[in-house]
């Protein structure tokens, strides 16, 4: 009994000490270090307009549906691209729901990009990501969309291709992971181009 009481007392005190050190000091030190050295990243890698309006995060996908923009991967986060309710579809390999969704997405993708009825479609374009907020699309997917975007914006394909390349995140240290094209930053760069009339004048065809 005495041993138990002594164990309880030590446990309570040690929990209190640990709470101060591990749950107070430690996160605050990381917070201070993060704010001092990597403030932009520690605060969410936000994409901000010149007037200070937050437009999103460079790390989080947003919905884009216009033919003038690159489209992100399908999302199962909340009602779609909900950055306060991240989630995958969690549908399994024999799910009819998933197969139906993929069938619809494949059809829509082929139609939008003028592909043949039996052309293979990049998997990332028709499957939901794990988080529902995947900021990237595959390079193959971006190259298919590039032609459509160039046409919709009346831009030379090469100019759009150059922007795609500039917004492709390569493998980490050239080795790790897979390359991907950041959709939000790419669309922002497209919108930042001079107006179309000016474009046409600069690139007479």
């Amino acid at each position, binding site marked *: 009994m005495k*041993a138990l009481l002594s164990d309880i007392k*030590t*446990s*309570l005190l*040690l*929990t209190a000490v640990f709470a101060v050190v*591990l*749950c107070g000091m*430690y996160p605050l*030190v*990381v*917070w201070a270090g*993060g*704010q001092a050295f*990597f403030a932009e990243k520690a605060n*969410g890698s*936000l*994409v901000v307009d010149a007037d200070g309006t937050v*437009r*999103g995060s460079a*790390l*989080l996908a*947003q*919905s884009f549906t216009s033919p003038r923009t690159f489209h992100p991967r399908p999302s199962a986060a909340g*009602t*779609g*691209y*909900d*950055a306060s*309710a*991240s989630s*995958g*579809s*969690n549908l*399994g*390999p*024999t799910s*009819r729901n998933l*197969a139906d969704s*993929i069938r619809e997405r494949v059809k829509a993708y082929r139609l939008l990009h003028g592909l043949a009825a*039996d052309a*293979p*479609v990049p*998997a*990332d374009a*028709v*499957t939901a*990501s*794990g988080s529902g*907020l*995947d900021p990237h699309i*595959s390079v193959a997917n971006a190259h298919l969309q590039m032609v459509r975007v160039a046409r919709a914006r009346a831009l030379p394909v090469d100019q759009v291709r150059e922007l795609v390349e500039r917004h492709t*995140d390569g*493998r*980490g240290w050239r*080795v*790790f*992971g*897979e390359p*991907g094209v950041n959709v939000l930053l790419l669309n922002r760069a497209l919108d930042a181009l001079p107006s179309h009339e000016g474009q046409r004048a600069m690139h007479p065809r």
Partner: protein
Amino acid sequence: MHAPLAWFQFALYAAALVLITKPLGLFLEQVLDRDGKTWLDRIVKPFEQLTYRVCGIDPTKEQGWIGYTFALLTFSTVGLLFTYFILRFQDHLPLNPQGLPGLSPHLAFNTAVSFATNTNWQSYGGESTMSYFSQMVGLTIHNFTSAAAGIAIAAALVRGIARPAASTIGNVWTDLVRVTYYLLLPVSLVFALVLVSQGMIQNFQPSIVAKTMQSYTIPVAKTDAAGHPELSADGKSPVLVDRTVTTQTLAQGPMASQVAIKMLGTNGGGFFNANASHPYENPTPLSNFLQMLSIFAIPSALTYWMGRKVKNQRHGWAVWSAMAVLFVAGLLVIWWAEAAGNPIHQGLGVAATDGNLEGKETRFGIFNSALFATITTAASCGAVNAMHDSFTPLGGLALLFNMQTGEVIFGGVGAGLYGMLTFVVLAVFIAGLMVGRTPEYLGKKIHAYDVKLVMLILVALSATLLGGTAWASVSPWGQAGLNNAGPHGFSEMLYAYSSAVGNNGSAFAGLTANPADGDPHWNLTLGLAMLIGRLLAIVPILALAGSFAGKKVLPASAGTFKVEGVTFTVLLIGTIVLVGALTFLPALAMGPVVEHFLMNSGTLF
């Protein structure tokens, strides 16, 4: 996917793991010796001594196995209650900028147990359920202490094996404090800052509302004045109306400090719902590589430390090799299955060369998703960078088997080693039976009592795992939680109990343990399964430690069974695979195996 590059990444991972095993093992030797000297002494020693003084700990006093067990269980219980009450009353506590309500009793119970047992099953949704205070205090404290407890138990067991005719197995308080202060905290501190440099958030701001680049419409259920959804004329489906979306709410919080220890301590409970697939929680392929390495770092180093303590380094490496072989075997199955993809989807027009990308992130691709999934299930970590529920049937099968073998393929910090050592005792026992000698392990005779303890663990855990699955699969509450029909639904239930009993924490996450009607069955049964999975492992293991400690060491003779070299490693692997296969193949046949054939025949549910 680029296959040679994937192999190269695997080679880098394996090389990095091997390279850190010895130095970290040597460091552990200093940490786990209460008089050990480390290069951190100058900074950390004063904190260590102050902690002893404040808590009234006598660091020179060692405990027998019963004293050690009671102290550890008391400490875990206090921590469990601490977290339970924080979660229940988070709405009255600070750092809750979103004004989230307190958790329901059964969700708070499930989550507190989940973290206290180093399982970190996410019945909660992270950004949608937990205040910053709950995450930073209620959950993070267990990320440290449950990991430290696992290492302490492993240390106690190894001391028991190594010491000749001793009555004590260490001091639980110094083990907890030293592991936390010298190992977990300093590494986490550096690791967290590296993660922030990759893009992980660490702030205390409320969620940020961004004005989206483009507005768009989504169908939502129409509600009447009282907020109830309106139903269509047939009274079944809700009436949908278009809602224009012009904002995106970006959840924030003190994430990096929690994620660093979540990986290093093989906890795995995500700050956000999508865990390490969320771009904030795993921003780059480099952060992904470091997270994967940090999961295996301590479990791998502990085998080296063990070899040193029992003065048989080749035994340490033999155990390490058994873990490595099982790890690579699992990885190859999962990698192959995910790269091969889903013939149903390929028939619909998905490019066959891309593999199965449902639930996977572009920046990780097939290989890094398969590697992460293998590591996290093998190591009882449970963090995920891809949704396991959407893996192919055979990929899912390997994930299940990794957990069902008892989380000994490197395993959780400490838990992997003590789990593996029970299999070592079993393997040595079987070898002894085969040659007709009293089995000896490192000079200590194994008696009926020791084998009974080992069997108690195996039987209790398997029975809980299979019994829970069986109960859920024939109950309305069990089936109500499913996200998938057919054999995959059964796999969701099997995965849930495998994860809970193995203290893993990953999930076939379509399963919902918090139904709208508030039925508590899932939260309560999984909470109990986690408790059984932890308690009925650590109590018999500490008893085993006590039993071994009291044994005399016999000199090696010509008939001594060697616990190093290829023969032993093969025997150990055989024991693990055989026990796992005999116990779980029938259940696996009903889930992933049958689903594999149905998928190949194009059947949908």
